[in-house]
């Protein structure tokens, strides 16, 4: 259990890093539920780039049709988890 929680947190932190870099803000500014578009001025290009970096990092294919759902960090995590078969 402890293992799983750690893994989950690690993934969250990695995703937070990626989002922060693309959104040009500090990782701390992105909470698990803050909205990329409304709170962090993300546009469609940045959303696509976040997706692209995730695909590259985890060697996973995520269809662009998932983009509209990727509104915040938690949503991103859940989508990646599903496509990458994470057992967090």
């Amino acid at each position, binding site marked *: 259990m402890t293992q799983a929680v750690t893994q989950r947190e690690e993934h969250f932190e990695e995703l937070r890093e990626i989002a922060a870099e693309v959104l040009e803000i500090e990782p701390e500014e992105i909470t698990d539920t803050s909205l990329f578009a409304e709170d962090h001025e993300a*546009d*469609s*290009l940045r959303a*696509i780039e976040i997706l*692209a970096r995730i695909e590259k990092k985890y060697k996973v294919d995520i269809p*662009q049709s998932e*983009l509209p759902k990727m509104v915040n960090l938690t949503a991103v995590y859940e989508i990646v988890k599903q496509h990458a078969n994470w057992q967090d």
Partner: protein
Amino acid sequence: MNRRVVITGLGPVSSIGIGAREFSAALRAGRSGISPIASFDAAGFPHYMAGEVPAFDPKSILQRISPDAWGRTSQFAASAARLAVEDSGIDPTELSAARAGSSIGTTGGESQVLERLTGDSLTVGFAGVDRELARQVPASRLAVAVNRELGLTGEAITLSTACSASNYALGYAYDQIHTGDLDYMIAGGADSVGRWSHAGFYRLGALAEKACAPFDRDRSGIITGEGGAALFLESLESATARGARVYAEVLGYGLNCDANHMVAPDPVSIAQCMRLAHRNAGIKADEVDYICAHGTGTPANDAVEAKAAVEVFGERPPPISSIKSMLGHTMGAASGFSAIASVLGIAESFIPPTINFRNPDPQIPDIDPVPNVAREMTVNIAQVNGFAFGGNNAITIFGRYS
């Protein structure tokens, strides 16, 4: 000086026809110029269709410059210019002795030359690339190629304002003749397809798989295209004096900038650009008979363009069709081809269709996209929309000369 400016020659080098006659027939027939990509290895690209011009043979058109010394986009520009001049019937010797120049729009310039150099550099390094090819990279060479092909000593300006660039070029050419700075201008645009732009649009999710279906409910994006579009402009006095056939008159143009987002178009700013164009052309919105749309076929562009049209024209905007459905998105040449199509429509009383149209989009119910079949009708005034990355909006207005 305030001279009236008319168009007396057309030179399309396009995937649906080379020369005014072929191009006009293709527009009327609603022909598609889209085919599987051949000019680069499209392996690995999920979408592999483009509007290339396989029939383009620069050697058969160019008379002065040697195609070997110029990149493909310059060849498009110079060939289109040569055709426009031939179409105008002006004596080429007389033209080269006159105050004449060119303004050519582009998105990528000679980026396919740079792409080849980049590809070569992966094996031989930049140090080992073809030095002659490296000389062909500057985008200024597009207009220079036009001038050198025709022997013109006046200004040769390349306007690289991306996908509305031909309209910028037309506007500037119009001013040069209107004010008396120059007497003859070749205006238009040119671009070539390439891996980098194909990849970029695909990555943006803006590339359709097989067909471009502007204003359709299920439209899914652009098809990249290429070609050269040139129009021959002169003063009305000059055209009348030499008994030239006048296709149409350039009434004016409008330019502005969204200053908001590099990629996402802004309906308020575009509506404003339409009003500017109408005001500068001295017309009222309800005088416009036909709008040749920017109509890229992306969900965002067509929705925004339709919204802006309704904002300016009210609930029943004039017919608005997109020839990108046939040509694909020819980038910097796009509004040049639209201008040629509109000018032909004015001269020959028809408007080109939006092909690949299946289902009306309930989000834009007021739009008449001239679905699939060209329409015979009198066009007294046509409006050509051009929008671009960087929020570079440019709209030209053409009128029947009588």
